[in-house]
């Protein structure tokens, strides 16, 4: 009896946003008298970092520091309509809506600053640190706070903006399936290394190496959290999880986390990730979305690694020790494939 190592790969792509489009999101941006900005959304932050990504998009577009922007989410009275946080649409759809709203607000802010500095708005630029100055003449400057006060109490202007982003709904040809499902796609390739025990059928993850192309990575730390967590979910889908262990027989369904198995910290392996950024033409600053697709390549990469290790193909998920052991026995023992 022995443990066998093997490597497997998978490469995938994934559409960004609700299939066929037709899924709008809106955003409102406004300034308070201190020159601090609020983004109002009905969109939901699920922990993935929607608030943080839209905050960075808003700050970059306005030309103010990120600390000067606060994102308020998830209120149907104050936030305008958003289709929801699903379909990898947060960064792409909501991000674009926030960008559009911030552009409109920036236009008013620059007009108000121009009036105070007695110059043409086109000659002004923000420095990203809370000031607006004449291009090439940093000393002719005004703080965003002073602009906000002047706009509201002197000029009677509202530094605010509305934004919406909509990919128009695509038709589907019932006969051929011709359609426009998405405007951009993320990509990934995963190499998984496993160790298979031919006595118990257990599969242990050894390591993962991956490359993900996600359009612009707006916040690399948030991208990393998604990719690391998503891969963990992929491992769990591959080797552990199901609500119906004898599907399609529905019996013996697990009822809690004692019966519903998932990997623990000891089952997680090193994961070395490369991120490629090919900007999407219609993404906010070129961003696509890493949310959903990061789990997908793990499942087949692990299955292919198991074949490489012991020569059995398990085509039914999840790949439990029982299935691996039965397959090894049926084949008359482990058959290691060419080492990769």
């Amino acid at each position, binding site marked *: 009896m022995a443990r066998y190592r093997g490597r497997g790969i998978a490469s995938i792509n994934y559409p960004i946003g609700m299939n066929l489009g037709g899924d709008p999101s809106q955003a409102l941006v406004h300034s308070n008298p201190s020159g601090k900005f609020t983004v109002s959304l009905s969109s939901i932050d*699920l922990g993935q970092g929607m608030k943080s990504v839209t905050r960075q998009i808003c700050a970059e577009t306005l030309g103010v520091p990120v600390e000067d922007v606060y994102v308020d989410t998830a*209120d149907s009275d104050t936030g305008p309509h958003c289709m929801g946080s699903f379909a990898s649409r947060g960064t792409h759809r909501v991000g674009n809506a926030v960008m559009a709203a911030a552009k409109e607000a920036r236009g008013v802010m620059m007009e108000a600053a121009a009036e105070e500095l007695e110059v043409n708005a086109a000659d002004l630029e923000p420095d*990203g640190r809370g000031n607006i100055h004449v291009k090439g003449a940093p000393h002719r400057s005004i703080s965003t706070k002073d602009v906000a006060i002047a706009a509201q109490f002197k000029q009677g202007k509202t530094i605010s903006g509305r934004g919406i982003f909509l990919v128009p709904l695509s038709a589907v040809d019932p006969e051929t399936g011709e359609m426009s499902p998405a405007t951009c796609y993320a990509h990934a390739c995963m190499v998984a290394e496993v160790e298979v025990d031919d006595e118990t059928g257990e599969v242990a993850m050894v390591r993962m190496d991956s490359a993900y192309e996600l359009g612009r990575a707006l916040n*690399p730390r*948030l*991208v990393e959290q998604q990719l690391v967590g998503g891969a963990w979910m992929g491992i769990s889908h591959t080797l552990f999880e199901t*609500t119906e262990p004898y599907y399609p027989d529905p019996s013996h369904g697990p009822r809690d986390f004692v019966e519903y198995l998932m990997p623990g910290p000891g089952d997680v392996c090193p994961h*070395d990730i490369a991120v490629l950024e090919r900007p999407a033409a219609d993404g906010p600053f070129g961003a696509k979305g890493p949310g959903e697709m990061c789990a997908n390549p793990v499942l*087949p990469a692990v299955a292919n690694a198991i074949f490489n290790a012991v020569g059995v193909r398990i*085509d039914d998920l999840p790949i439990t020790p029982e299935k691996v052991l039965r397959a090894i026995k049926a084949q008359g023992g482990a058959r290691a494939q060419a080492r990769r």
Partner: protein
Amino acid sequence: MLELRKDIFADERDDNLKEIGKGTQRQDMLGHVTGASTYFNDHKLQGMLHLKVLRSPHAHARIRRIDTAEAERSPGVRRIIRGADVPHNLNTLLSLINFGKDDEPTLAVDKVRYKGEPVIAVVADSPREAFEALAKVRIDYEPLPAVFDVEEALKAGAPVVNETYPKNTFTYYDVYDHQKLRFGDVERGFASADHVLEQRYQMSPIEHAPTETNGSIAAPDTNGRYVVYTSTQALFFSVDTCAKILDVPSNTFHFIGGTVGGGFGGKVDTLTEPLAILGAMLTGRPVRYIFEREEEMQYGPPRGAERIYLKDGVMRDGRIVARKVRAYFDSGAYTRLSSYAAVKCAAHLPGPYTIPNVYGDIYCVFTNRTPATAMRGFGVTAMDFAIECQMDKLAHLVGMDPMEFRILNAYRDGDMKAHRREAKNTALIECVQVAAEKAKWPLREEFKRMSSLKGGGGTRAAVPPTARDQPVPVRPAAQQRTTYDRAPQAAGPQPPHPPTPPPVAPAPAPQPAAHGAIRFSSVFGSRRR
């Protein structure tokens, strides 16, 4: 460990931005790490009542009689809610975008169609008193034969799961029991291939397993409104679904979401809000309805099972010349979102590869199990598992390195995809090359030099002659008024597409805009190319 490969596609980006591209700390980090972030269940309202539901013990049964007399007298009970108390007790989630027919009650009335389907709700002073009252409800069931296997469900004589769809399949475009994808001639492709490989893949249902289970708290507000604290992933989806089910204007509700303790697709279905609000309407008190862990695991919707048959034709040199797919999405007893996932799945075929002949039939099938819903990678995860396992087998079959095999077949800028749109902004080849580099997986020099930017288009940009199936007579589309469907209909029913000529082989290459496709909805704008 994460490495940004700024050297790749560098000329397509401006990397000199001030805030974009920075690893700025999350806005809500402090609240999360100190435990101060507020979840829906942190709202403890004065006089709050608790709602629990009685679930069906049968996978399929007729309800003969419901007796709640003893439960009504149970201590602490404020209200028993039956299906008849729900103003609009039939809905389908995607009616909001005019896709599919209403097929699911909030509380079952005549029949239960899966084990765990809600039949009766009790609102009581405490969760314990609600449970005690539920135990006193008497329901007389007549068990019916049930069907659990997607292919069994399609056979003649199989039990009818959901009378809205008597053939146990979702109806596409009012005529088809599946979503089609047709591109080129797969049979000719198989005939010309050196090897043909057909395989079956199966994914079982998977639980989203959020730390926080589904739930909501609804409370009467001033001026006839209701405030609703909820764990939803889609605030307005939930607002508008509740407005439809409870038959009130959507601005009756002030929905407040916020921090969500894990979603992954499992909090899109508006599972608790309608009953929580109805409870608040009927009692005048705040009502909390949150799933127990067992409810979340077994009766909250899972990622649905999928069964996939994949048949590929491949040449000795590694080129895939045909791919045929038949897939069954197990929707459970009701539609929820599986119908939409099947369309997304068809669009995803044949994976990120350029294959000249592709054929897909994707079925959304009803069985007597918990309805499935969206989950991370919706419509694609299981198909990617099937396709990528198949790719490994094909590479093995022709004796090619699996990395090089993928690079050889990868789609590139300018290629025609099977859903008949040009591939743009592709990057699969680069991902394979970088992953190989990271894993120290040797690639031959010619494969290291290949690029998504080169070698695509040309003959690869053509839509091949495609034979069409025998057309089915089109019935006028039944229109249903829905929350988002406020625009007047153009002229009665949706325009049926023109009759399709009978198949001729080879058929003339269709002009890109020549067909008369019908739209899912009349409200979301026009056809997009």
